[in-house]
């Protein structure tokens, strides 16, 4: 009996560990979050799109800043092709005072974000996706009203210098989806700022 309980505890733990973040091929997690324009934006609002470029990002992180222009360009390039950007700020504003909702509004206005910039106030969404850093990309594909995660990871292979990029991981993945094939690689890693969890 004791052994059975222990085994089930171990099994539950294993499931929890596996569920700490989603993988390419998994179903995307629905969200409904407050946007800087005062509206609420949900993933299901994008049901008429081919997919969504979901970006976990924030105001102060140098990597997020280095990629900011590129993210705006991505939206301008791919929104018309059915892959708009949705940005989510996951940082707790007490731990990271540059990420308050007011400062998010200012940033979005100053840089003229053409996409929603949402606040993950309860931090449930970034945890459900398993995002760990900013910027962290989740490319979602719409399959008949259900969103599936197609690619997770980096935008490209040079955070410092956009003109020196040689591997455009994200754009390659979008092109693959537009051609009806699967992204390869479906997952990449990048150095980034830790997401600031509530303490």
């Amino acid at each position: 009996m004791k052994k059975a309980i222990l085994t089930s505890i171990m099994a539950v733990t294993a499931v929890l560990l596996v569920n700490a973040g989603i993988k390419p091929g998994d179903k995307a997690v629905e969200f409904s979050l407050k946007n800087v324009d005062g509206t609420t934006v949900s993933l299901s609002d994008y049901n008429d799109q081919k997919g969504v470029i979901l970006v976990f990002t924030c105001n102060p992180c140098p990597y997020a800043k280095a990629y900011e222009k590129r993210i705006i360009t991505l939206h301008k390039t791919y929104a018309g092709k059915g892959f708009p950007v949705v940005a989510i700020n996951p940082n707790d504003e007490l731990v990271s005072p540059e990420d308050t909702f007011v400062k998010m509004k200012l940033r979005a206005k100053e840089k003229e974000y053409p996409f929603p910039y949402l606040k993950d106030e309860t931090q449930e969404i970034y945890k459900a996706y398993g995002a760990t850093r900013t910027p962290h990309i989740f490319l979602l594909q719409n399959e008949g009203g259900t969103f599936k995660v197609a690619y997770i990871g980096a935008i490209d292979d040079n955070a410092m210098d956009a003109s020196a990029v040689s591997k455009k991981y994200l754009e390659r993945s979008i092109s693959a989806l537009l051609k009806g094939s699967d992204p390869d690689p479906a997952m990449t890693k990048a150095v980034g700022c830790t997401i600031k969890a509530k303490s």
Partner: protein
Amino acid sequence: MKNSLTLLFSFILICSQSFGQSVKEVDSDMLVAQCTMQNDTTYVVNFWATWCSPCVKEIGFFEELHRQSFSHNLKVVLVSLDFPNQIEKRLIPFLKEKKISAEVLLMTDLDYNSWIDRIEPSWSGAIPATLIYNRENRVFLEKELTRDELFNHVSQLN
């Protein structure tokens, strides 16, 4: 005479520690080598950057560990992930200001995806992150460490 010589040497040693800070640029192969040494030393490899506030908070503990490490078969290596174009402008001034004397490497390969798994497959790429290892054991911590956590992990391995 002997005493004053000792004093002089101590002074030179302190000076070279305080002011002789240099940064060695490394590529992925050199970094992987640094993370897989096979000898009697325990290595503490911290991945950080000057702009990363939790990294800056804990860096003093690594420096403290380094200053205590001379007789313990222990080596602290600070791997900076600052952009290579910011060595002179940011990295060196930061090391001087914080009086860092531990060895500092600067990673020049920005295709992170090509080398993160070679350092540690469980690492997502977020910093701070710390690898503590020797020939027998290896622990990788993707989080900010308190002084106690750092020293306890090291003493468990060493």
